[in-house]
């Protein structure tokens, strides 16, 4: 039975490292995560439904979804542009620009949150130019989109960059020599080639946006029914010791993000197979 489980190898240490990996994974991740699902079973279906269909909760889900979608889309467009410029062109300070892309990964979310808020309030560096135009960013859903775009941008850029780097430019040259305009080449050759990576980047940014907390709560102002995101409601329920309510909201979020994660994996596996065939 053991032989069927694992292919033979002369390398040592399979069983110790395998056991340690699964044990640590089970203790730190799987058992605590299962607690959420088990706890939600302590609610009847009716109670569960009442928690997640309550108007503030529905409003929060809609806001989290909507803002993450918009921010993901902006990240996809801006991210593609930045990745294109970083891969295809040469300019001074390129290394710095490239390093800067990872800043949202490295900067603590709370720091990003207060920094963005200070920029976009009415007296802030950016807000003061938007206020005369009647555009309010801080303490509105627009502020949430700004924060989630900051968070999502590197996911898109880092997904597309390697694909653009590997892309065979002879395909573009072939398209051009067959009479395609630069725009047609972009639309018919470059875009289809980068689509799986773009989709992955978008989905990663979207998934991260749904769960994001630290960078959002400062700029959103947390007005009930207007700018409260779903993770904030979990924290609010916990502060009232309503564990079952917090859990119900969390279960819905977990299921959505796991479905997204599986989807991303499927896209990546498919495009890997596609690239292998092309080689």
């Amino acid at each position, binding site marked *: 039975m053991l032989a069927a*489980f*694992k292919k033979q*190898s002369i*390398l*040592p*240490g*399979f069983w*110790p*490292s*395998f056991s*340690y*990996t699964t044990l*640590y*994974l089970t203790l*730190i*991740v*799987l*058992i*605590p*995560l299962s*607690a*959420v699902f088990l706890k939600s079973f302590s609610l009847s279906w009716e109670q569960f439904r009442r928690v997640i269909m309550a108007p503030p909760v529905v409003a929060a889900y809609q806001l989290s979804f909507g803002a993450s979608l918009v921010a993901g889309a902006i990240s996809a467009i801006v991210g593609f*542009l*930045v990745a294109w*410029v970083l891969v*295809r*062109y040469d300019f001074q300070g390129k290394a710095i*620009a*490239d*390093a*800067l892309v*990872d*800043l949202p*990964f*490295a*900067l*603590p*979310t*709370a*720091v990003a949150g*207060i*920094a963005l808020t*200070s*920029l976009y309030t009415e007296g802030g560096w950016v807000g003061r130019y938007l206020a005369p135009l009647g555009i309010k960013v801080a303490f509105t859903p627009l502020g949430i989109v700004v924060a989630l775009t900051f968070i999502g*941008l590197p996911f898109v850029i880092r997904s597309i960059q390697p694909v653009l780097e590997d892309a065979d*430019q002879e395909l573009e040259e072939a398209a051009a020599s067959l009479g395609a305009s630069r725009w047609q080449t972009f639309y018919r050759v470059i875009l289809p080639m980068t689509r799986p990576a773009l989709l992955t980047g978008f989905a990663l940014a979207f998934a991260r946006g749904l*769960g994001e*907390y*630290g960078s959002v709560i400062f700029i959103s102002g947390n007005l009930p029914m207007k700018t409260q995101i779903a*993770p904030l409601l*979990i*924290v609010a329920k916990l502060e009232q*010791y309503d*564990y079952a309510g917090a*859990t119900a909201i*969390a279960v819905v*979020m977990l299921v959505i993000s*796991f479905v997204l994660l*599986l989807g991303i*994996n499927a896209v990546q596996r498919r495009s890997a197979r596609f690239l292998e065939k092309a080689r």
Partner: protein
Amino acid sequence: MTREEKRMAADPRPVRLLLTALALAALGLLVALPLVAVFAQAFDKGWAAYLTAISDPFTRSAILLSLLVTGISVPLNLIFGLAAAWTVTKFQFRGRSALLTLIDLPFGVSPVVAGLIYVLVFGAQGWLGPWLADHDIRIIFAVPGIVLATTFVTFPFVARELIPLMETQGIDEEEAALVLGASPLQMLWRVTLPNIKWGLLYGVVLCTARALGEFGAVSVVSGHIRGETNTLPLQVEILYNEYNYAGAFAVASLLSVVSVVALVLKKLLERKTRQELP
């Protein structure tokens, strides 16, 4: 024409300039400006005010706590990362791809939910709550809870860096070492670790930056007790909510310096990691 020249030739110069300007403007506005704002606000009232803000005793205890938590979480995830990468890259076994997916699982979990799950296990109303209370052990609203939440959030970072690297390196060198009579430990020290050292360091840098800065998960399990369970990011939040903006941004600037250092290290290590690829 070199490859580089060919690339550039594809787009006419005005298009190149326009796109570059747009991309840099977007990066500057969206990413660089918030970083600049942190330092501008921190030094708004001058050096003296800055030094007062960061030498506050509560800030000092927050620094120590953040370092302690990071000092425990990162080594834990480092050992896990090595074991996990060794298991999934050097052997073929059933359930390998399921294990790979499970390792990535914490990436898909909201930080707030990551905190919540430990409250459900160790909190007063949780599974182990009554037993822990009987034995006078505090995990939630105490340091162990903060360590657990941080460990969860930074769980895949080292493994994630090592797995693609070790997969491309294959098993030939290790096999050769064993055939030539090396013991497993010698193989680990002389072959495997030297091959992956930069990638490993890179994972540790990412893991450390994230552990120091984690906010959502820690905020759920910490209880915000000043001087006891307040980490640096939580201290930023408290000062900010008290309208002590200069103080909040001063503490935030410390965290920002850490992340800038992490970015510089990342850039340097990336080049080294590329050399590790066969």
